């Protein structure tokens, strides 16, 4: 295993220490593992979290216009209820807190327990479960679709709604709408390695790739010969379009899995755009880069969200976080 770390056991603490030093505008409690910013009294706050290893998700999205708090768990392990509750309490502004939760059993259960704790303290909680991954085909016989790239879109857009002063129910509704209008599909060329394990989650031959991967090093739906960017884009978009008819204006996220160079992501984005525009779908907004990663996995995921005018305006609203920044 080759990694720029001290020891697997100190990885999360070390990374949070670095994150704190790099982003002095945020409050980082390294011991309790929560990253927060001051809430605005009377406004809804957003808390998200999940296992580490997906950086910049979630701590990189804390800041004006997006999240108020993030609680990173151990690598690929959901945070614990007490930690989530501490984050929730720290950023509660009195108008309720939205929990943005990716649909993994561990995340769902731990956030549910944290919501109970918040309820005990009289903090109103709404929860949005993100489950955009169409690679999980049969969601009635599984834990349900995984939450992947759409998480960034939910956090950005719901964050903008909260910034606009919307009530908790409205912010939650918008978050739910973003998730409902988004679909993702991912591929890997090489699996990531959990530092404490030391070997890759799965092994591919030099001429193989994995289709339909998640973001936790789990293998995907099927293995195949390595394909050109054009075919990968088509395969992913076919799966997405089979699940949600694509039309009108869309937002596209081409997301790197952590070990993929930006140049290749632009190649993928060119192919995704060409595929969509050839079918009369307009790519009105886009994001290309590493946003929801899986340690050092090589590969990418493609997320498509069908836009509305309101969602586009909320997307365009100013945001100022370590990993996402625009507007003035």
């Amino acid at each position, binding site marked *: 295993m080759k990694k720029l770390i001290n020891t697997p056991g100190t990885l999360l603490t070390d990374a949070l220490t670095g994150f704190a030093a790099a982003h002095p505008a945020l409050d980082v409690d390294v011991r309790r593992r929560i990253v927060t910013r001051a809430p605005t009294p009377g406004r809804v706050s957003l808390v998200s979290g999940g296992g580490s290893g997906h950086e910049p998700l979630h701590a990189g999205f804390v800041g004006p216009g997006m999240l108020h708090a993030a609680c990173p768990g151990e690598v690929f392990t959901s945070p*614990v209820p007490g930690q989530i509750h501490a984050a929730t309490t720290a950023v509660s502004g009195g108008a309720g807190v939205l929990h943005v939760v990716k649909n993994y059993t561990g995340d769902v*259960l731990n956030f549910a327990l944290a919501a109970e704790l918040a309820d005990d303290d009289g903090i109103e909680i709404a929860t949005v479960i993100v489950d955009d991954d169409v690679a999980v085909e049969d969601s009635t016989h599984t834990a349900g679709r995984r939450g992947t790239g759409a998480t960034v879109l939910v956090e950005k857009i719901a964050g903008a709604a909260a910034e606009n002063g919307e009530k908790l129910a409205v912010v939650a509704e918008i978050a739910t709408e973003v998730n409902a209008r988004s679909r993702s599909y991912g591929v890997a060329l090489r699996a990531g390695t959990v530092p404490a394990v030391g070997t890759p989650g799965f092994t591919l031959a030099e001429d193989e790739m994995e289709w339909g991967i998640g973001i936790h090093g*789990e*293998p995907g739906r099927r293995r195949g010969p390595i394909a050109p960017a054009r075919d990968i884009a088509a395969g992913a978009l076919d799966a997405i379009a089979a699940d949600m008819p694509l039309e009108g204006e869309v937002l596209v996220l081409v997301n790197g899995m952590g070990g993929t160079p930006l140049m290749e992501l632009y190649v993928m984005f060119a192919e995704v755009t060409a595929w969509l525009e050839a079918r009369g779908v307009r790519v009105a907004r886009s994001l290309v880069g590493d946003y929801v990663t899986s340690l050092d996995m090589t590969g990418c995921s493609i997320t498509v969200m069908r836009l509305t005018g309101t969602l586009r305006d909320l997307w365009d609203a100013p945001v100022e976080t370590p990993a996402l920044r625009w507007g003035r």
Partner: protein
Amino acid sequence: MMDAARTRAWLTAAARLINANSGHLTALDTAIGDGDHGLNLRRGFEAVTAEATGDTPGAVLKAAGNALIDATGGASGPLYGTFFRRAAKALGDAPEVDDAVFAQALAAGLAGVQTLGGAAEGDKTMVDALAPAVTAFAAGGDAAAAAANGRDATESMTARKGRASYLGERSIGHIDPGAASAALLFQALCSVTTD
């Protein structure tokens, strides 16, 4: 008969077994999950060892459940945490309980896991080891063997809950990590009750 000391002995034996088999549990989870089950439970049971104290079996199990929920994370933390907390609730504050009462408490724990996680037997989860073990314990049979059989039976199952479910039929041929850890828990329980 279970008292606080023996309950605690169960948990420390379990912690030792989890610790000794942590790499194996993680390897199982690497095959069909995300490769952290052994790491999670080792962390969780370290907290159990440190915090699960009390004057009654119920108090010990409640502290154990809270420690697991606080320290483990993942799916297994809340599930095992709930198992112990529900069992604790069923035991109330009795300083000593006989095996029949303890068996009922284990059944309550199992019910808690199933309510929270929604898994039935055959879904290839910890439930597939817990359920036969709880039944065997109630019947005075070999709960450890029942759990181990339940664990082994997961190998041929298709996962329908947890991360392994994403693999669909590709999960066949692998033992479920949670079923393997559940078997360790009952191995530990039998090591302190059969003497």
